[in-house]
Structure formats: C-alpha cells, structure tokens
C-alpha cells in the first residue's frame, strides 16, 4: 500500500494564553497527542464539539499552525524538516478551504486577480483559457473572472474559493466547515462538488464539520474529537450506526433528524 497522503503522529499544540486557565498551567493544550492519517483518495471527516481542537488540528496539517510536539508528514515528508522549497511544495499539494468565503477572499481583487495570484506566488504564469477551465470545473462561467467578491453570492464565492484551492492541482484539500455559512439549498451544491473532485480527480479530503449528517454522507472515515483528543475513529457508516464513545453518542443523539418517526 502506498503511503498515506497525510500522517500525523502524536501531535500536540499548546497555545500561550494570557489568563493561564484551561487544560494545564502553561498555556492551553488545544490538541493533545493526536495521531491520524488520511489515505490517498480518501475523505476523512473530523467532528467534535466547539473548541475540541478541530481547526487547530486541520491547520497543523498544512503548516498554518506549528505543532508544539509530534510529527506531521504529507506525502511521506516530515513537514518540520522541509526547507523553503519543500514548504512551497507543501502549500501546493495541500490546499485549504475555509468557512467564510467572503472573509477568505480579498474584496479589492477580481476573481481573475485572486486566481492569478495563486499561480504567481508559485512562480507560474497562466492563461485566460486555463482560468476559465478552472472556473468551469467548479461550475462557474467565464463571466465570473471580472467580478469582485461583493458581486457574487455566498455559494458562488465558495466555488471561487474551491477554484483557488484547485489551481495548483493539490493532492489533499483541507476543508474547515466549508458549507456552514451557506444556505441549505446551496450547501448541497458545494458538497457534491467536493465529492466529484474526490471521485474524478482522486483528491483526498480532510473535512472538518460540526454537522454529523454532512460528514456521514460525504466522508469515508470519521474521527471524533473531544477536548483535544481523538476519542473514536472508524468507517463513517459504522461510527454513526453504533457509536461507541459517550462523546460520539451524545453528538449523535443531539443531532435533530429532519425526518418524522413513522
């Protein structure tokens, strides 16, 4: 079997805090000795209550947050040992999509500029045809190239954010609550788009969400976080059919069903 696209071993993150309360005296232990991997082509869902450390863990996976201890390997390479060129390659291979598309896009730049900047940052040039193809792959027409963020809806902006993530043909996309800020009818469009990218282009996903129903439908495996630790992992069908850990059970029971009992 080939190496996992992402492998985190015993990683911890301690944030320095002013007040000094929380888990432990010296700062706040947001992630506490977590090991996790994402196989090639796999979608791993990460769920847990607010503050359990999901975003911190996700950010360590692409180097946005530096772990206090432990190792992160992407594509078999130890991220801590990467030089400048290696880090740049990491940023190409591992892309990120955030919750709020408006906040993650520069309001003063057109979609064209936003996309061109991604290529420029990696010393590459691009053509209009390439940009149009990129937009088409996320279901947007060429007319979006000239638009500013305020000229598009939330769902359209999230498509632009996904296009930006796809620009450099990443192997892994880390999506932190990519659909939480979107309307219900638009949410499904983006989720289906991400699922297509996984199926058709073999892109792997680390998908963070507080919505268990979304994770159940759109990920192969699930990891459940509680207070900085992973308390349960397994195939998503199994985890939600027979949750073992009390934390998972509480999350499942609290999820309101959009279905009436017969």
């Amino acid at each position, binding site marked *: 079997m080939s190496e996992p696209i992402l492998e985190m071993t015993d990683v911890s993150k301690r944030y320095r805090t002013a007040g000094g309360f929380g888990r432990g005296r010296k700062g706040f232990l947001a992630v506490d000795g977590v090991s996790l991997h994402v196989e090639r082509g796999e979608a791993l869902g990460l769920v847990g209550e607010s503050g359990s450390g999901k975003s911190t863990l996700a950010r360590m996976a692409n180097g946005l947050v530096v772990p206090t201890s432990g190792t992160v390997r992407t594509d078999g390479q130890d991220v801590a040992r990467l030089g400048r060129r290696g880090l740049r390659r990491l940023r190409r291979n591992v892309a990120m999509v955030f919750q709020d598309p408006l906040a993650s896009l520069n309001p003063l730049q057109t979609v064209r500029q936003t996309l061109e900047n991604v290529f420029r940052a990696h010393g590459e040039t691009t053509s209009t045809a390439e940009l149009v193809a990129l937009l088409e792959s996320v279901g947007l027409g060429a007319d979006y190239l000239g638009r500013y963020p305020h000229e598009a*809806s939330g769902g359209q902006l999230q498509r632009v954010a996904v296009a930006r993530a796809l620009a450099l043909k990443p192997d892994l996309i880390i999506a932190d609550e990519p659909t939480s800020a979107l309307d219900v*009818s638009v949410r*499904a*469009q983006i989720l289906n788009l991400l699922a297509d990218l996984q199926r058709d282009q073999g892109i792997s996903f680390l998908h963070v969400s*507080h*919505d268990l129903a979304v994770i159940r*439908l759109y990920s192969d495996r699930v990891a459940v976080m509680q207070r900085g630790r992973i308390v349960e992992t397994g195939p998503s*069908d199994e985890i939600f059919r027979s949750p073992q850990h009390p934390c998972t059970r509480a999350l499942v029971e*609290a999820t309101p069903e959009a279905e*009436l009992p017969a």
Partner: protein
Amino acid sequence: MPDPVLQVEDLCVSFTSGGVTADVVRDLSMRLDGGRTLAVVGESGSGKTITGRAIMRLLPRGASARGRIVVAGREMLSADERELRRARGSDVAMVFQDSMSALSPYLDIGAHIAQAVRLHDPSVTRRAARARAVEMLDRVGIPGPADAVRRFPHEFSGGMRQRAVIAMALVNRPALLIADEPTTALDVTVQAQILALLRELQQEYGMAMLLISHDFGVVGSAADDVLVLYAGRQAEYGSLRDIFDHPAHPYTAGLRAATPRLDARLDTGGERTRLRAIPGAPTSLRDAGPGCAFAPRCGLADQVGERCVVEAPLPTVRPTSEGGGLHLAACHLDRLPATQEVAR
C-alpha cells in the same frame, strides 16, 4: 375556535431607499394558537427576520409594514408607542440568533432581566426585580443563579448566554415568543438542550411560539405547523407532517432533498449517496420578476410553461393527511409528480 394569540393578514413589508420603495415581504398570513409552535422556514433573505420584527413593530429604519397583525387581541400596526411598550414583554417577546447583540456589555445579567421586569411593571422595586432575575435564571437552568446574576455577558458561554436571553424574554410571561434562529450559533448538544428548554417553558406557560429557522432538523423536532418562505412570499403552509411527508411545493420538496440526514445512509450498503441540490441561489423579492420567484431554479417550470414566468402563483388549498389541518401551496402545479425531479 379560541382567539388566536397571533393573527397576521396580508402582511407586506417594504424598504424605501433613495426614493425607491420595494417590498421584501408580500401577502403573508398566519394564525397561531397558545401552546402551539409555528416554524417559519426559509433561506437567507427570504424575509424571516423582517417578519418577526414586523410583528414586534421593531422594524429597521426605512421599513414600513402594511396589512394586519393582531397579538393577543391588540392591533400591532395601529398601536401607539405606549401601547407597544406594554405589548412588548407581556404580550410578545423576541429572542435573536446572536445573543451578544441583545445584551449590553456594561450591565450584569441580573440588571438585564431586572430592567425587563421594571419596564413592564414600574411598581416593582429594584430588589424584587433582582429576586425575579435569580428565580428566572434558575428556571432556565443556569447553575448557581444567585451568583450568575452578577456575571457579565462575556463571562458566559454561548449556550449560557442564550439561556439568559431566554430568561429575559420570558420573565414577563409573554403570550407569544418569537425565536429567531435561537440555536444557529450553538453546538448540536447545546442546541438540543436549548430546544428542550424552550419546549418545556412553552408547555409550562402555555405560550405560542414562532420559531424562525433555516434548518429542517430543528423544525422537525420542535414545530406543530410550518410556513415555508421563498423570496418574501409564502411558498407553502401546513402541518409538520404534511410539509415533511406530502410537500406540495417544489421548493419545499427540494429543500427536504437537499437537507442531509444522519440516518440517510443506513440502507445503502455503504454506497455513497448524494444530496439532491437545488441549482442557483435564493433570491429576494426585490430581485424577483413578475412570475414565480422560484421559476429560475424550478425543475417543474417547464411542465407548466410560460405561466410560471408571467404570473405569481397564489396559495391554494392542498390535500391534507389525517388530522392535518390547513395545507396551502403557492404553485401553478396541482400536484407534484411522484418521482420528484423537482430541481433542474
């Protein structure tokens, strides 16, 4: 039939800016009895919050409402300021999605609740009002209420703050509570607790609840009846069961199909199922044309033809399931096809 706690007839709300006036809510009607919950469901911009605010007569600048709103026998649209002050709190109260915006950072939690008590009844002493605050915090499940009244909003977690806001809204026992996305900003576990608390208090006080939400999961666990809004208009109205099991409007059916469910994959043998998305994005009434506002996104518009584009459908009566009550849908189609290719 008893007099309803809330009766709305042909409510229209419009905004005027730069000399131009445009409706954002049009021809809404609803009726809500004590002890019952009516959910108002819709996507962003569909007019949910504006409708709640119109009922409170708390509209933003530049907005005006027409039609008729009766809360506990009081005509809200013709009431003067004094009457409105009396109505707010004792007849109708509102809880907002963002609990922080309802609270002043400079006042402790007790002062917020005591203020609500004294605004309603100036003869209550400060001390007595403060005592009511402690009682109320205890009632909404805040541990150590005697100590909690002295805490400031930022010292509370989101869930605790929402409990405090509920205490503030309910301290004068309003006949109607308008809850605008009361759990949207909260964790699922906290959300379940807050919904349970609202249900409990509703039964105890016998109040009517207008529950505004975009989430069918929340609606399914809390509502008796459902009003589905699309672009400021009523798309469908009916009992929870009719809306869930026999939707008559393509938008309602589409929303249901686009909502993920935790049990949805149990019998698929592990095969990935996908949600059926509705193409395009929700519009507001301002941007809608003369026809059905849903037409650009509706997979059934072709079946009906030009009518969908030129004529806005009015709500008409639809079949109900057993004990279902009134069921209305605003769609030119008499019935949805069995296999619902409702979205394009």
